[in-house]
């Protein structure tokens, strides 16, 4: 099973022939991902990395049956490319691009709301289903097929968690990097829901950081609907809040956005919270009653 992407996913790469796109598409193919082609406007008809290049997403979908797209498109053109993917019938859009203007994402969010598509990111490391499909920039070799799903806002901290889960002998189903921008397509709660409903996933790791209310929202959902153990780490216990919490926070529930407050909320929702990022894997093994 797994979620979002698997060995049957037909993946196209938007921004295929650029340097980032080429490098990571190569890595994805090497991992065994079913990359069926790419899109670079104006280069349609060419072949790149032994795969066909198309001018438009619609054409790529018509010719290859692609259902997943990953974007390595520069920030100025990324919003347009996301909308093109949705219009072209892509079901899962993974946007790696960092630095998209917020105003562009306001339009994208509106555009996607009545489309049958899921956006992951932007500004994220992508989605990876261990042993099946890498649709992102995560290092493939640290993954091992297993039973743990991972949801995370950050890049390298996700790798840290993946690595610990592999080393402790559990392995992963799917890791989802949701991204850290003000407007993202899939929230922590959305991603946790997906994994909760995945029969292969036996435990979920949720990695968050200070700021925002994504983790608290997910925690509240888990409390009501959770059927599997969730281990969480919130980075930034020692990071400066910077903004004086307290006054304004009281108005729209901002009290819950420090690391300590988030951890307290998650604990009250039955989530297993670790204080040290070095203990994510250990805690999951302990909760599942597995000895490393």
């Amino acid at each position, binding site marked *: 099973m797994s979620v979002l992407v698997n060995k049957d996913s037909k993946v196209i790469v938007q921004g295929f022939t650029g340097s980032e796109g080429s490098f990571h598409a190569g*890595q994805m193919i090497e991992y065994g991902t079913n990359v069926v082609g790419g899109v670079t406007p104006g280069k349609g008809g060419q072949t790149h990395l032994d795969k066909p290049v198309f001018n438009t997403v619609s054409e790529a979908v018509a010719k290859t049956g692609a259902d997943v797209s990953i974007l390595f498109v520069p*920030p*100025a053109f990324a919003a347009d490319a996301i909308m093109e993917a949705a219009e072209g019938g892509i079901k899962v859009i993974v946007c790696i691009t960092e*630095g*998209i*203007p*917020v*105003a*562009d*994402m*306001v*339009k994208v*969010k*509106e555009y996607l709301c009545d489309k049958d598509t899921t956006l992951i990111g932007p500004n994220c490391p992508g989605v990876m289903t261990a042993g099946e499909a890498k649709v992102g*920039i*995560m*290092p493939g*070799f*640290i993954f091992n097929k297993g039973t743990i799903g991972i949801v*995370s*806002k*950050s*890049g*390298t*901290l*996700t*790798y*840290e968690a993946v*690595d610990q889960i592999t080393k402790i002998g559990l392995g992963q189903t799917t890791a989802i990097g949701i991204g*850290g921008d*003000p*407007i993202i397509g899939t929230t922590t709660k959305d991603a946790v829901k997906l994994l909760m409903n995945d029969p292969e996933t036996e435990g979920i790791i949720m*990695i968050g*950081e*200070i*700021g*925002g*209310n994504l983790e608290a929202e997910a925690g509240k959902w888990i409390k009501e609907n959770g059927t599997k153990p969730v281990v969480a*780490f919130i*980075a*930034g*216990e*020692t*990071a*400066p809040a*910077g*903004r004086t919490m307290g*006054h*304004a*926070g*009281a*108005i*729209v529930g*901002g009290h819950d*956005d420090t690391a300590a407050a988030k951890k307290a909320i998650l604990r009250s929702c039955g989530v297993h919270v670790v*204080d*040290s*990022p*070095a*203990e994510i894997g250990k805690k999951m093994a302990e909760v599942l009653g597995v000895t490393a």
Partner: protein
Amino acid sequence: MYNNCELIVQKKYEIRPDKIITNITFEETIKSVMNLHEYQGKEILKSYGVPVQEGIVVDNIDNAEAAAKELTEKTGTGWYVVKAQIHAGGRGKGTCEESGSHGVVIAKGLGEVNEKVKGILGNHLTTLQTNGVGKKVNKVLIAEDVYAPDFDKCDEFYMSVLLNRETGRNIIMYSTEGGMNIEDVAENTPHLIHKEEIDPKVGIQGFQCRKIAFNLGLTGTAMKNMTKFVKALYTAYEGCDASMFEINPVLKDCEDRIKAVDAKVTLDDNALYRHPNYEAMRDTSEENPIDVEAKEAGLNYVNLDGNVGCMVNGAGLAMSTMDIIKLSGGEPANFLDVGGTADAERVAKAFNIILKDENVKGILVNIFGGIVRCDRVANGVVQAYKTIGNIKVPIIVRLQGTNAVEAKEIIDNSGLNVYSAITLQDAADRVKELILN
């Protein structure tokens, strides 16, 4: 704790409405917005037809009187408002260290202009948002007195435009309680704060502008003028790719005209490529010099008060590394994200910046090599160490991921005061053993 950092973050996020709507992540506080001075913000507003309190900016006392005369010719003003231009709020209540003057003062006639400007220009202004450190005032704005001739017939409102992250849509937040600290209003009388959400499909509509005007208690000409003001303000917000507008106060003067008396404008850094003319408005003299140096080197750096420095790839892992330093009994001396390329040059720059802080007793390098190869990073660390020459504190290098074992060998065989670790726990233990014992 974290005095320096609060200063930095406040400086970058002096505007408050974001806290009232929803909170921002740490990652966002350390990048992605550009602050403007009041006079720059007003220039942008004016260019979109938003009526503003007119003024002329001066950076030299010799030009002050001439500027005031010119302003009177243009607007007919008899009094002048002299306003310090710094990137911090609370200027009116703030105090200049040298002169004792407030940051916003009235000159009751041309004769007082020189004296009032002298009290601010070149002085160091301390406000509630400068965190105890006076900020040098390089420019003052000499502005018209918009409250004349009858102060009692004027009304002040509050208005801001920003993104509501929960819905992914822009909103206009407004209140009859203008000229006050909006956080206090939100805390004490939340029912006096209104929000109007803009549908991105159709943009701002006339009925929304009218609703705002009516909710502010306006009628007749003032209502019509406010409707136009709101429309122009929102158009400006979208047009210049702002991250936030805060106009406090918005004034209804005795002739029912609506004007922006103050303007706090921040722009979305990521959209500046669409507005090359705004790039020139960046005032690096407002930024901490170490910040500027770090930014130029492509590093995300925030100085903190602790004793263990760190250098990490990725913001989330960087914060986790700070957490692990704390759990080991130390205090993080900084936040530093080196980004994707941790080559020798960048590592050397990062070390140099970290070592400027005399409280640093040791440095923990934590790199998870995904695409980046750990052996290259290890070579970079060794090379940087040798280039800098006189590093007196121990360095712990935790390299995990691609070629981690080779990297460990490079570190172990370097013969330098550099120690290796592979797991995060090893790194934590080493911090305790080598730096904090």
